[in-house]
């Protein structure tokens, strides 16, 4: 018989970050040709964990793999996760094509959210490109349920074509409100489109805000966020009040796989939302 090891190991808590929790797909909406919004309800229990607008989950498609996907639902709807997924690879293809009743795994929520409290008492701008809207949708829900905490709320959303707009119906409702302004622009359109055409940064001169007292959240392709930030700076928005959501191909969500390194940051841990000031110089570098 072997004797006891010196100071036998102390058993750890059984909790592991490496176990996706099963959820059932309760609803699926086709947003565009390649993008769908899926709603997930817990298989066990009745509610999901809390999350902050801007955080993401690792969604697991059994037999396929995992992908980091922003949370796009309302923080106060505790019964479900809502995610909008665009087919852009092995895992997102599968996630975008799930059917109601399918079971997926969820790990999360992970990352840091938008600093909404900083915008309280100020003008709030959301400038969004493409699939940057889903991670900002929870912000809109929060803002609308506490509308009195903010001054002007202005949203500019740019997409590729009218067919690539997500949340179409909901956007119509938002556009109908008098307590926020929601502008939409597309890169190109056909004759059926009577909205704006161009790029989203063009909308900035037209947005109503007081530069010195404005907080801006940007989410979209890096080149779009760069251009937007510059345009906002021109209108007097303090660089320290511009926030961006960065994207890299996250594999773990918990700062241990290294894929989401961006300069000093591990985006899954320190981001994805970061002050623009802290990433500005890296966005200027090639292949960083």
């Amino acid at each position, binding site marked *: 018989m072997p004797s006891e090891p010196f100071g036998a190991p102390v058993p750890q808590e059984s909790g592991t970050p490496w176990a996706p929790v099963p959820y059932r797909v309760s609803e699926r909406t086709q947003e565009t040709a390649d993008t769908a919004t899926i709603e997930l309800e817990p298989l066990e229990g009745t509610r999901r964990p809390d999350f902050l607008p801007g955080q993401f989950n690792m969604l697991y498609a059994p037999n396929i793999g995992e992908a980091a996907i922003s949370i796009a639902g309302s923080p106060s709807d505790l019964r479900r996760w809502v995610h909008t997924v665009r087919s*852009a690879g092995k895992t997102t293809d599968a996630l975008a094509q799930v059917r109601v009743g399918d079971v997926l795994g969820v790990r999360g929520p992970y990352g840091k959210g938008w600093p909404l409290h900083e915008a309280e008492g100020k003008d709030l701008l959301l400038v969004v*490109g493409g699939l940057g809207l889903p991670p900002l949708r929870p912000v809109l829900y929060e803002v609308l349920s506490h509308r009195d905490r903010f001054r002007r709320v202005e949203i500019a959303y740019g997409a590729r074509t009218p067919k690539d707009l997500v949340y179409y119906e909901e956007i119509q409702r938002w556009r109908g409100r008098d307590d926020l302004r929601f502008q939409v622009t597309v890169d190109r359109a056909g004759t059926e489109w009577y909205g704006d055409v161009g790029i989203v940064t063009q909308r900035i001169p037209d947005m109503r805000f007081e530069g010195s007292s404005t907080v801006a959240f940007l989410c979209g392709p890096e080149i779009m966020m760069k251009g937007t930030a510059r345009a906002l700076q021109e209108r007097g928005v303090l660089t320290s009040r511009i926030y961006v959501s960065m994207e890299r191909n996250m594999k773990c969500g918990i700062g241990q796989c290294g894929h989401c390194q961006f300069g000093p940051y591990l985006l899954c841990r320190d981001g994805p939302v970061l002050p623009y000031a802290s990433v500005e110089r890296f966005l200027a570098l090639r292949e960083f």
Partner: protein
Amino acid sequence: MKEDRRELARELRTHPFLQGLDPGFLDAIEGATQEREFETGDPVVREGEPAGELILVLQGKIGLELVAPDRPRLSLLTVGPGEIVGWSWLLPPRIWQVDGRALKATRVLTIEGNALRKVLEDRPKDAYQFMLRLVPVISRRLHIARIQVMDIHAV
């Protein structure tokens, strides 16, 4: 009528594109200025037709569209209040390169091109200031076109 002219003169002088230019220069072009209105869907300019004027948008929205017989119309830019349409009047062959269509009820000022060019030729210093306003518009639209070509939302 007098009242209208005065209003037009005010609008000309306060349009962001011209605001702050030399008053003498603005006086000089005022005579070549007209106001026009379009209903939703009305053509504003047509590709291939003589480009006779500079258009300053006051209200509404004009879509600049590319047309080719074998493909659907493609809208690449919308121009709204405070912006301008067209520099084709400036350089030969003075032909519109795009279709412009009113996307909502739209009111514009037009400055007749021949007269405008004449004023610019006579007042080189003011012309320089005018060009300092026009070139950035061209440059910005070129930049927008480049970003559109990149198709940044495609990946």
